[in-house]
């Protein structure tokens, strides 16, 4: 037995020698983790995305004289340096280099004092983002001069994580050539493949909305990952546009006990959703998200426009939705001009897609959406 003990200790000693935890490598990440501005100039918290920072400023702020300060991944450096005064009349670009010097990321930093949301959305413009296996599209709108006005958010970056998508039109949100006028928005509910199912997210509805998709929380809290709404200084009255819809063949519900996590629901037909919400952004509720965007008891919501006669159709069909104000909600003109209110517009190819119910293949096409605002 002594021999056995001896050999075991010898082995353990040997194993300890070769399997020591080595010194930690230098950081490879190059993130802007936070952004602050001197003085009381910010109207909202900075919106920090992976390659973009958006600063919503008070109307009185001087865009040409801003010196944003950044905190970065430990050890990373930024150029121009944090605190450098720059003119933000047009977007500025920063480069962050990781601690180990091997990785760099370019950030677009945009500051705005104007809360004009365009009145016409045409879905003609997309840019593509490369993934490990293909690419997906991001929609944006431009004004008459070709200047970018807004960027639409979608769950495409989340779908990319499932590894199921390849070409742009295999993603849930993509551009189609057969629009009401020129190109249009197409949303298709899709299965998310093995890894999506492993994570109890077996399907993904196509969605497009004004706001931010926080991919960081896309898996842990998908309802909270969809941050609906961007600041507006006008009160919307109507949203109008055109749609086509084809429901997918089999409607499924999430069933965590099944290997593919999908339980077919016979005799149930999928339907889409289009809605818009005008709400007040407060400290407690800076933006709406999937958990509360349509809640009847949400005190921040002022008005909702929502499609009620959604139907399957292969003809372009008009929708014209009035914003219905909730009882006792009066818009404060001062807050309005300060950009304290927000507007969310949401399109989804499956009405219950946020709970992973829907029919794969359900496709909603939308085009030529116009917003009308009250004269105030």
């Amino acid at each position, binding site marked *: 037995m002594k021999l*056995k003990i001896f050999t075991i200790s010898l082995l353990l000693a040997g194993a300890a020698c070769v399997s020591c935890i080595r010194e930690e490598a230098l950081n490879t*990440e190059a993130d802007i983790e936070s952004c602050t501005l001197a003085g009381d100039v910010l109207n909202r918290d900075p919106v920090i995305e992976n390659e973009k920072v958006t600063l919503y400023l008070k109307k009185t702020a001087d865009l040409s004289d801003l010196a944003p300060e950044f905190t970065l991944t430990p050890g990373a450096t930024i150029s121009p340096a944090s605190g450098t005064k720059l003119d933000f009349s047009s977007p500025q670009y920063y480069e962050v280099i990781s601690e180990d010097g091997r990785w760099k990321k370019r950030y677009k930093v945009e500051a705005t004092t104007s809360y004009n949301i365009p009145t016409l959305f045409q879905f003609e413009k997309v840019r593509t983002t490369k993934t490990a296996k293909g690419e997906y599209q991001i929609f944006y709108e431009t004004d008459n001069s070709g200047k970018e006005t807004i960027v639409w958010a979608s769950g495409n970056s989340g779908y990319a994580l499932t590894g199921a998508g390849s070409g742009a039109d295999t993603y849930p949100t993509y551009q189609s050539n057969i629009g009401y006028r020129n190109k249009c928005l197409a949303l298709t509910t899709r299965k998310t493949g093995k890894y999506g199912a492993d994570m109890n997210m077996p399907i993904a509805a196509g969605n497009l909305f004004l706001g931010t998709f926080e991919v960081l929380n896309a898996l842990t809290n998908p309802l909270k990952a969809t941050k609906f709404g961007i600041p507006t200084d006008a009160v919307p009255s109507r949203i109008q546009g055109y749609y086509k819809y084809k429901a997918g063949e089999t409607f499924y519900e999430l069933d965590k006990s099944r290997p593919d996590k999908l339980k077919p629901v016979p005799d149930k037909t999928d339907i889409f959703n289009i809605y818009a919400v005008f709400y007040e952004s407060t400290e407690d509720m800076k933006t709406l998200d999937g958990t509360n965007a349509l809640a009847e008891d949400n005190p921040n919501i002022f008005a909702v426009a929502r499609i009620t006669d959604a139907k399957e159709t292969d003809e372009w069909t008009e929708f014209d939705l009035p914003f219905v104000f909730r009882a006792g909600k009066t818009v404060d003109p001062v807050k309005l001009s300060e950009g304290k209110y927000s507007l969310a517009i949401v399109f989804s190819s499956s009405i219950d897609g946020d709970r992973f119910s829907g029919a794969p293949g359900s496709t909603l096409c939308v085009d030529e959406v116009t917003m009308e605002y009250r004269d105030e």
Partner: protein
Amino acid sequence: MKKYAIAVVLLVVSVCAATRTYAQEDRSDGIIRSLLLGLEYEVKAGVSIGGTSPLPLPQEIRKIEGYSPTFCFSIEGDVIKWFGEKQRWGFLFGLRLETKGMQTKAQTKNYSMEIFGDGGERIKGNWTGMVKTKYRSTFVSIPLVAAYKVNNRLRLNAGPYVSFKTSGDFSGHVYDGYLRENNPTGNKVQFEGDRIALYDFSDNLRTVQYGVQAGVNWKAFRHLTVSGDLMWGLNNIFKKDFETISFNMYPIYLNIGFGYAF
């Protein structure tokens, strides 16, 4: 592969049974004749503990939070041919049926990974968080080692071995952490709770492995031996074209066995 394994088991068992019949007659003519020729026979059974690990541990691994050797057994039949008048040096040839396995739980930082699903899914990125791994393979191994008799009771052996995998499982999941999509500057996504990503690299395990082993064999009684052998794999357990795990992994196991010497 399974059929192959069964055939080998049957072969070993029948060899054991056959030699046992001889043994019962205690130093039957055959054994005595073998001894005169400098041949010795031994059968043994043992358990292995150890791990399959990158060497040295890559910097991406920050902490080993859990390790379980799992139950790994081996059975082996050996023939030793002694040389020379003093019969101090010899050559050992054997056939060993064995399993090697382990389970680990490690904390990683910036661990580069790429996984493929059956439906053509592909996820690539850098993982910071927990990785749980389960490894278990069965092999038919052939040790070809030199033996040295220190005295009548103690024998040392050392030399190479070659292993043929008959079945293999290398799988696990990642959880509690975050992925940077594609590379360290890509989208950051958190995994928590039941959000995990399963992986299975069983199909990427190499069939032929080789390594070196060294050990001692002690004759506790006339027929009963106790042995300890360290087996150190020298080639990566994965196929050459497998790049998901960016570092080579080597099996290192200690086998403790009890044997019957004829």
